[in-house]
Each structure stands twice: as C-alpha cells, then as structure tokens.
C-alpha cells in the first residue's frame, strides 16, 4: 500500500484511540481499520468468546428510512416481513436484485416512524443509492454520516453494558432501544456478528471516543480488531458479504431461506420472487455448507472442493483456523448432491488433497440472549 493510497483512506471517529492502543491498521472497504491490537488475533478471538470484546464498526453504513410509506417501500427491496414486525424489533435481511442475487445483507430495525438500517461498509454507497432511488417519493432516506458504531460481543457483554446502562438488562436478542450508556445517549440493538451475546451501539461521532474508553475501562473488555471479527463470524457460521454471498448467489443457495418470511412467500412480491420461490420448491444446483477439514491445515478462500473421486464440485468461500474450535473451519458452495451433513470431500490445498466433511454450522454454539 503506497502512501498516496494511504492518505485517501477514510478514518473512523476512533482512529486516534486505535493508534493509542497500538493497533495494526490496514485498509478495509476504503477505511483505515484496526486488524489487530498487540494482544493478537488468536487471543483477541478467545477473549471475546470468554469475556467481552469491543469492536469499531463505524465503517458500516447507518441510515433512517422514514415516512408513512417507508415499510412498504423497503419491503419491495427485500424478502423480509417488516409490516407485521413489532416496533423495536430488529431483523436480518438481504437486498435482492432482479435475478435474486444478494446486493448486500443488512440489519433493519422497526422504529416509530420507519426503519433504522445498518449495511456493510463496502456496499454502503451502492446500497443507499439503490434504496434512495427505489423509495423516492415514498420514504425519506437519511444517511447517518455523523454517527459511530461500536459492537461489544461476548458472554460478559450483557453484564458490562448493564453496569453502564441498567435499562439494557431486559433487552433480548434482536431488539432495539434508545438508552444512555455511561451518561451518553445512544441507540443500541442486542445483536452482533460473532455468535455471542452483545450489542451494537450507535453513538454520535463526537462522543464515540469517550464511550469506547469508558467501555474499555471495564475489566472484562479488550479492544478487538477485524482479524478476530472474521474468525469469530466464521466459527459462528455467519456469511461475509463479497465472499460467501454476493450478486451471483441467491438466499436459497446461501442457506438463508429463513430470511424469506412466510407472509412474503405467500405474497410473492419481493424482487425475483418467481426465481426464489422456484428455488425453494425445486431446489438449487449448489448450496452453501459448513466444511470441517481433517487435520490442522486451514483451507482458505478459493480452495477447490472435489468429491472423493477427484471431480471438482465446488469452492471454499471462507476458510481459516477457528481458535475456539482449535482447528480449521470453512464454508463454501458445493453441488447440492454433496451438501448433506457427513458427506466426505477433498480440499485441494497446495496441490494436495485434504479430506474434509460437510458439517452443520455453527462450528461453535451460538449464545444469544433469548
């Protein structure tokens, strides 16, 4: 990375704090982001699984979509049911294109006058342009440029936030509330991207540093970088946009048919509903599956998957070492005939076949606050 490129990278409101904490910074989605702190990816991962980790995810896109027509207009872009969802509830969904491909995956929360949405950093400009043009005249899109987003994840996250914000104690997984944390006005969802309990905290950019320091001052909490964020989500079986899902994959192929909610299946009024409903009824040629390589060698993204007779049947889309599993873990697409749990596969790593099995995900159990 040249210095020229480096100067063009955007910085999050926590940039100074990352440097004070000794983070190793890398370019990610146009931002200069902490990939790890001095603790290192392995220990950061394990710390999050046993205590609590604080992540800067301010590079992600936040917006309000409001107005009387907001819910209807948003439903026209996604297969999720937001009409029948109570206010204060958060739901994961996908933006679909006209061929049923996934333009992005996102979280949308029902608020009093519409939706609060959080989208991926790399997709946010395209997502917001798409949402804005498709909802023009029906809803107002307000992009929240001046807000940071922090995530606290791990089994101690609930205790830590309850200490700083008693009003969060009764929040359950995938709910939203406007609260005060350590005296700072925030809005939070009890959600995350690690498979653990936790919160995503939206805070005014000007207060983000102060809030992060107050949370980091709690004894259970360490700052965690993007490296561990990736290994945590992989063990949790959660897809990474641009790798495990993209415009060439449909939610049915991606094992996300649960995002097509019942009412929407009946109404068939989301993008490419005919294609998606046909796939739900008749199946797809390929499926995203969890893959557990035998032995210790990780099989990385791009690794060819073969059947036991040596025929190419798919590709790894995310793969690495799972510190909590204490072994390699992966996910990828295989021909549907090879997608059943327990199917034996070979992964071609550095020219050699490594035996592997199709397994159920997650690789580590989810611990959500239900």
């Amino acid at each position, binding site marked *: 990375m040249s210095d020229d490129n480096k100067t063009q990278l955007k910085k999050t409101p926590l940039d100074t704090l990352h440097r004070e904490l000794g983070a190793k910074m890398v370019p990610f989605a146009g931002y200069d982001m902490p990939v790890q702190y001095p603790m290192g990816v*392995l220990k950061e991962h394990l710390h999050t699984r046993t205590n609590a980790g604080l992540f800067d995810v301010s590079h992600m896109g936040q917006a309000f979509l409001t107005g009387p027509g907001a819910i209807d207009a948003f439903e026209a872009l996604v297969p999720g049911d937001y009409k029948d969802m109570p206010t204060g509830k958060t739901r994961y969904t996908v933006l679909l294109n006209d061929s049923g491909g996934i333009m992005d995956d996102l979280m949308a929360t029902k608020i009093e006058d519409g939706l609060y949405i959080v989208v991926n950093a790399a997709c946010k400009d395209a997502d917001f342009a798409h949402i804005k043009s498709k909802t023009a005249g029906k809803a107002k899109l307000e992009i929240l440029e001046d807000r940071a987003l922090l995530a606290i994840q791990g089994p101690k996250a609930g205790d830590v936030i309850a200490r700083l914000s008693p009003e969060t104690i009764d929040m359950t997984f995938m709910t939203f509330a406007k609260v005060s944390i350590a005296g700072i006005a925030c809005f939070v969802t009890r959600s995350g991207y690690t498979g653990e309990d936790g919160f995503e905290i939206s805070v005014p950019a000007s207060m983000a540093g102060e809030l992060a320091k107050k949370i980091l001052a709690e004894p259970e909490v360490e700052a965690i970088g993007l*490296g561990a964020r990736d*290994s945590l989500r992989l063990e949790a079986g959660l897809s990474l946009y641009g790798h495990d899902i993209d415009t060439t994959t449909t939610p049915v192929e991606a094992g996300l048919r649960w995002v097509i909610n019942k009412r929407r299946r009946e109404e068939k009024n989301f993008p490419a509903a005919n294609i998606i409903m046909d796939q739900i009824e008749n199946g797809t040629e390929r499926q995203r599956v969890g893959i557990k390589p035998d032995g210790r060698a990780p099989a990385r993204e791009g690794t060819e998957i073969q059947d036991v007779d040596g025929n190419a049947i798919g590709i790894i889309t995310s793969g690495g070492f799972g510190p909590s599993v204490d072994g390699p873990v992966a996910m990828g697409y295989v021909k549907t005939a090879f997608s059943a749990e327990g199917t034996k596969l070979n992964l071609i790593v*550095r020219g050699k076949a490594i035996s592997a099995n199709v397994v159920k995900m997650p690789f580590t159990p989810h611990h959500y606050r239900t």
Partner: protein
Amino acid sequence: MSTIKYTKDHEWVSVDGDIATVGITAYALEQLGDLVFVEVPDAGKSVTAGDEAAVVESVKAASEVYAPVSGEVTEGNPAIADDPAAVSGEAGGDGWFFKIKMSNTSELDGMMNDAEYGEYLSSLD
C-alpha cells in the same frame, strides 16, 4: 562453531560445514502473529534457493518460508509441525524449520550478518 546469516525475507541460516539450518527471525514471527499451523518439508526434497519450502499459517493468513539456499533437505523439524508455538524466532535456536545440505555454499555470500540485519530492520521502519 556455526555462523549465523540473515536474509531479506527475515530468515536466519545457521551454517555448520555444508549443512544450513533455517528458521524465521523474531521480526518475521511478530509480523505473522500467533502461528496455528506449520508444514515443514520432508527429508530428501531437493530445493533451489527461492523455492517455497515450508508453510506457516496464522489465524488470518498463510505465508511461505523460502529455501534461502539450494540443496537437499536433510530434515524438517517435527517439533514445530506438532506444535506451532515451538517456533521461537531465536536465531540458531530449537524453533528451526528445516536443514539443507547445501549444493552451492557461495549462495551464503550475499546474506547479512547480525549487525547488517539489525541495520536492515531499522531501515524498514
């Protein structure tokens, strides 16, 4: 008495007669982070300087360890293949990767000594 040389790829080479013992430096280890998988070459493998000879993987990524000299691998270190945490970064220490019976010892000539490697490291910051 063995002599220790360093490469720009942050490997150390401990030379004893025509046997070169190869490892990675503390700097390399720090860049890689905690290692979770190490693959070392089998004895008998013939290598040319610059060939990929071993693999080290962290949680994040896989990296190669190159053969700094040409020759025949006489031994890969089973201790680090069994336990990647045994890779130490200590030049000449127990956390070595492989030993090569050198076919061309003049390949050592372009390598750095301890002081030169120290200067090279400071030039990187």
